[in-house]
């Protein structure tokens, strides 16, 4: 177990370096990091050169990357061009997005798995067909359309929820955005659970459990569901990173000042330090979530051992 963990942590290093380097190159090479500093007009060459020296932009890219990463590991994510430390932006943005992601994941787990179990046990019945068609529709309507429509209906027309979220973003205002953020993944979780349950419900251990007289509820929850959850857990785990990164659209629709909002602003204003910093954290979250998923396998299925 310990050896497996160490190996996995070591394997994460190249992916982390690769992903951050890629985004660093995208931001620095594709864009002109100084251009954002002089507002709408172009910098004059002397100012630009001065700024470039100040931010170390005159050095080769690999050296900039090395300096940046060295700073990151001492907790210094640099300064946004308005003089605010990037860590300060993160401290306000991440709690909001983490709350939003949590709401989304709770929706995925509760609704997605429940629907999946119900349809998986009733394959071919009208319930199953209806839910499956529903998931297809949800998957095909892009998130930003779902978001705009629900905001229009629930927020503006019927007034059930606030159409935009206040800066503090309390949990109750995040329910609708969380549902919107979760919608597509929720549909996938439903379909995955359904397939998995339908596959396993004829397994020998289920027959044994029924034969020894266990109540149906216990057979389904403890035996069938537990064994069917592995693909679902994999999906939800990899989805955490996607949800936090994909929150850009949802946060824009509901005016939530989270990670997506800061990233969007950072990209539009070519605020390289903000963008690279936030993406670095997102990549870390993605990698750690994936690792946790792999460790969860052994909890769900004791037959899986790590060597």
């Amino acid at each position, binding site marked *: 177990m310990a050896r497996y963990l160490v190996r996995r942590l070591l394997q994460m290093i190249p992916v982390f370096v690769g992903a951050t380097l890629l985004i660093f190159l995208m931001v620095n090479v594709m864009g002109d990091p100084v251009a954002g500093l002089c507002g709408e007009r172009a910098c004059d060459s002397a100012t630009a050169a001065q700024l470039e020296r100040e931010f170390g932009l005159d050095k080769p890219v690999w050296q900039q990357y090395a300096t940046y990463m060295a700073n990151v590991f001492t907790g210094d994510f640099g300064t946004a061009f308005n003089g605010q430390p990037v860590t300060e932006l993160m401290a306000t943005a991440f709690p909001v997005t983490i709350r939003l992601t949590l709401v989304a994941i709770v929706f995925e787990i509760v609704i997605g798995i429940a629907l999946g179990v119900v349809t998986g046990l009733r394959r071919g019945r009208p319930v199953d067909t209806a839910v499956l068609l529903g998931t297809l529709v949800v998957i095909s309507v*892009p998130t930003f359309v779902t978001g*705009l429509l629900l905001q229009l209906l629930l927020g503006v027309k019927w007034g059930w929820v606030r159409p935009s979220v206040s800066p503090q973003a309390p949990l109750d205002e995040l329910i609708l955005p969380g549902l919107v953020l979760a919608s597509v993944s929720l549909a996938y979780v439903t379909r995955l659970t359904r397939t998995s349950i339908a596959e396993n419900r004829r397994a020998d251990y289920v027959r044994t459990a029924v034969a020894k007289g266990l109540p149906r509820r216990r057979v389904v929850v403890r035996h069938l569901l537990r064994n069917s959850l592995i693909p679902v857990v994999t999906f939800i785990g990899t989805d955490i990173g996607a949800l936090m990164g994909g929150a850009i659209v949802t946060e824009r629709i509901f005016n939530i000042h989270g990670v997506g909002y800061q990233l969007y602003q950072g990209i539009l204003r070519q605020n390289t330090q903000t963008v690279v910093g936030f993406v670095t954290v997102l990549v870390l979250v993605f990698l750690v979530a994936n690792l946790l998923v792999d460790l969860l396998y052994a909890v769900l299925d004791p037959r899986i051992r790590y060597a």
Partner: protein
Amino acid sequence: MPDQQQPYEPERAVAGTGMGGGMDLAASEAATLEPDPERPDGARPQDRPRSLWSDAWRDLRRNPVFLVSALVICFLVLIAIWPSLIAPGNPLSCDLARAQDGPSPGHPFGFDGQGCDVYTRTVHGARASVTVGVCATLGVAVLGSVLGALAGFFGGGWDAVLSRITDVFFAIPVVLGGLVLLSVVTSNTVWPVVGFIVLLGWPQIYRIARGSVITAKQHDYVQAARALGASDARILLRHIAPNAVAPVIVVATIALGTYISLEATLSYLGVGLKPPSVSWGIEISAASPYVRNAPHALLWPAGALAVTVLAFIMLGDAVRDALDPKLR
């Protein structure tokens, strides 16, 4: 899916609909294991086991989901090539005096915020979506499956390197990468968007292709071909590729729908296509600020977008059901 099923027989689900019962299941599985790629399609005697492809085609022709989605897609492609067929107006001729007006004779969908005819712009928007979807999928499928097949077939160092590279791409959220890369592009064509989707999409197909090539490689007929002295290229192209291509086609079809959705999302965020291009994402983005007064300007392009994506995803679903007998 709409195929009727016996309540307690999920595996042999298709018995009631004539979509291939237990016999066909066995036959198509046998065909998967023992294919005959040398023989051109259609020229086979009746008593031979049908190939995976002819079996799948037989299933698909009877599947209403496939027929409906294929019909929708044909219509979309026609509209994308020749929009003036059903919308003779010019999508760029707008009359500000009629901004946000509702439907009127000759303008069934009403007008958007700039006073443009929503019907004309919705019809003309199909071209951008279909072009991005088709070109990006082709690019992703070719790049991903060639790299994946080579990595899966030869293994070794390149496989390790390429697989780590795909890990890197998986770690970057797609919309985020799109914002960063496309925000500096000033071109107003679909090609930057296509290029971006190919750049970030190929790892998905790579993994599928690599996996199915590794599976196909272990089959006896590959060993047999090798023992007979076939070259690597011949084994890969004539023996492995025909048996590994099915999952790639399935995933690519479904991905096509999601790429169309992604293009609209990027255009909505302002980095995909930009006005004066006509695209559903741009229409929805432009209509969203005044959605209270003129919801029709948002609903029609959004509906068109949803139907398009739905059609491709359902097509992919139907193809998967037909190509993978085990899923039945």
